[in-house]
């Protein structure tokens, strides 16, 4: 087990009320395993990623434990956390266009993380950065390293982000929507690349794109309104989904008929009583409105949060 998250809560206080962005999540990632975290926009998946790397504002309330290898990341100092960030745990943020510094050469943006964590001198770090660009299949990397982000296409920028994340050979990668905004051919190239470069690494893949998850993940966790509703090996999620939300999510795929889930996901400030999904659930029963279902293991390694499963 490389990462073990237990009873994790991430709450923000806002003028409108308490936002329960991550509300009691248990999730583990094994060595070399890719776990997909899937959910609609605003369900809290990105916040979970930022909570693990402790990149949220200090005013955020975080409870529970995040054990990385042997260390509880929520207990160590900021200085110790900085040593882990970018070195052991790399985060590939969403939107490569805005996540790369527009006035800094691409090579330098990779080299600086190498200098920081591996103590290489300027020249060696620059060379390693070029090598990293080559490893993510960027053509003529030594020339491209001297260019600025605006000279790269969307797909190429995403490759740069991946190279930046992999620069210090991390054990765990958190990739947030790595294929967002890319057209289909570029998307499949990025998927292929991610598959290749993360073969030996653990990865938490945050996405709302099931096709990406299907191509990359060993296990998939469905997130809804701040909590996990189903978590199982990828094959089971696709072949035998048990939670009505998972089924709805799969049904909304184009090849499954583009049937949308009725209603909207609830606000994280005003969560519904009982099961959080019941207002949108076709099978909702009386108990679903009263009681909040727990996560139950219905088969070996297949967890569902539903009274009906």
């Amino acid at each position: 087990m490389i990462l073990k998250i237990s009873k994790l809560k991430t709450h923000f206080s806002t003028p409108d009320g308490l936002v329960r962005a991550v509300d009691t999540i248990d999730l583990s990632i094994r060595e070399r395993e890719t776990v997909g975290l899937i959910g609609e926009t605003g369900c809290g998946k990105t916040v979970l990623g930022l909570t693990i790397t402790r990149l949220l504002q200090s005013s955020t309330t975080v409870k529970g434990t995040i054990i990385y290898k042997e260390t509880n990341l929520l207990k160590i100092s900021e200085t110790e956390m900085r040593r882990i960030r970018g070195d052991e745990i790399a985060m590939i943020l969403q939107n490569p266009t805005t996540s790369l510094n527009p006035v800094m050469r691409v090579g330098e943006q990779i080299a600086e993380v190498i200098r920081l964590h591996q103590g290489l001198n300027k020249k060696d770090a620059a060379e390693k950065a070029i090598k990293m660009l080559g490893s993510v299949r960027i053509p003529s990397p030594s020339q491209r390293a001297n260019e600025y982000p605006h000279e790269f296409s969307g797909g190429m920028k995403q490759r740069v982000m991946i190279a930046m994340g992999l620069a210090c050979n991390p054990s765990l990668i958190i990739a947030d929507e790595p294929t967002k905004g890319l057209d289909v051919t570029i998307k499949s190239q990025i998927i292929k690349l991610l598959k290749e470069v993360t073969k030996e690494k653990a990865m938490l893949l945050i996405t709302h794109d099931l096709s990406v998850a299907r191509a990359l993940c060993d296990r998939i966790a469905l997130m809804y309104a701040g909590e996990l509703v189903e978590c199982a090996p990828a094959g089971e999620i696709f072949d035998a989904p048990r939670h009505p939300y998972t089924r709805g999510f799969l049904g909304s795929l184009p090849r499954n008929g583009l049937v949308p889930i009725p209603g909207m996901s609830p606000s994280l400030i005003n969560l519904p009583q009982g099961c959080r999904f019941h207002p949108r659930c076709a099978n909702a029963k009386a108990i679903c409105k009263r009681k909040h279902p727990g996560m139950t293991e219905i088969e070996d390694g297949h967890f569902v949060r539903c009274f009906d499963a």
Partner: protein
Amino acid sequence: MHYINKLAYYLVIILIILSINFFLPRAMPGDPLAYVLGENPDMPIRMTEEEREMKLAEYGLDKPLPEQYVDYMIKLSKGDLGHSIYYKNPVMDEILIRLKWTLLLTGTATVIYMPLGIFLGAESAWARGKKKDTLSLITILTVSSFPSFVLGTLFVIFFAFKLGLFPLGCANTIGATYANPLEEALDILHHLILPVATLIIAHIGGTYLLMRNSMLSVIGADYILSARAKGLSERYILNRHAIRNALLPIVTMAALTIGFMTVGTIFVEKVFAYPGIGLLLYDSVLRRDYPLIQGIFLFISIFVVLANFIADMAYVWLDPRVSDE
């Protein structure tokens, strides 16, 4: 190509400015002759019609406007700015004597207030919401909201008149003889401190606020989060990632203020009787000294255009996205 285009663009602008410079002073009511005799403009002019005509002809002011305009442009193309009606000297000489004082005054002030404002603004934004930020915000805004002439007057009254720490005005002690250059430099410095302090305080608020706002928008940017995700320290992120991006809007403002600083010092130069371009312009306008007004306007325009040109170049250097457009 980029540079040549820009250069051509600025040449056209200067040409337009020249024309405006010519017509604007002449649009003012009153005429320059009243002051040639050192008279009050409200008093009747004691000159016969003939004397008047003669005088006007001497300065070429008897000709129709279009003809005067052509004359002016032809002379200008030869580098001749004409003669001051009041001082009788070549305009160029009058301006050059005054220019060094203005450059000393504004140059010193700018070199201090610009980096200081940028530094304080960046630090303030990085510590947003904390005591350090609130305190500097309130202090700088309060002090900077005094108009420069009020502040200058207060300085003169308090530091120069009451305490006698500084001279009441001028750029150096009139009629003084110096034993060595160091003594002269110290005398000039002594005269410089109050007006420079006034300018710094009057201008630092703008730079500080702009840098602070610019920095605040940069702090929320994705690439800053990205830099944090790499494990970089806050200080490193501020210096290497944030400042350069936040400086972009500052460059434009800096160019504008530096360009206009030559006139912006009118109030300060007036209050401290500092013999710079601003004071010269003020006097020339009162005296309707057309050639001198035109000459000063020309110098100011060139300064503004030059400052903008430098800003454009600095932009290319600071923001790699600009050079491709």
